[in-house]
């Protein structure tokens, strides 16, 4: 059983809008993931600095 009986004329417009909806959301997720990544990288660096040179004078911030 297929639910598609007829071909709607503006299908490419419709599929475009559906893709825009998806794209806008995935763009946001990528931005969030990159931001989190950046924070995590900083955190790893902080921890590694503390762990591996606990006595050495810090050269950063």
């Amino acid at each position: 059983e297929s639910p598609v009986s007829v071909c709607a004329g503006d299908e490419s417009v419709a599929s475009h809008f559906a893709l825009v909806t998806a794209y806008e959301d995935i763009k946001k997720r990528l931005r969030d993931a990159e931001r989190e990544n950046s924070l995590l990288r900083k955190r790893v660096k902080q921890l590694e600095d503390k762990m591996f040179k606990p006595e050495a004078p810090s050269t950063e911030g």
Partner: protein
Amino acid sequence: LVKGNVSIETSSFAHVIFQNVGKSFLPQAPLECHYTLTPALTPHPKDWVGIFKVGWSTARDYYTFLWSPMPENYVEGSTVHRVIVFQGYYVPRSDGEFYQFCYVTHGGEIRGASTPFQFRQAMPSGEELLT
């Protein structure tokens, strides 16, 4: 300069709004789909909701579909909330792709599209427990 942009909000593509769509679902498990028919849409027994892989080209590209149940005692111009459940057997496997719900009228017109979701076993935030 004439711009060709059409506002999604005011277009017929937003006559159906999908509610609280998660970012990921378990593969091959029952999947609830909540949506709202705005007054601009008059439902028809042969309207349907499909799960589509993002990037689909035509309504025929649906992965699976369910007929959208007609509201009982529907009053023209009212707002209707619906819930349908896709059974696990028909739901995509974990494949790393994004899918979205689309509401399609009996005439083949798209009246709503959801944000995208994936099918995967575990949330990424749970992965650290696997260390």
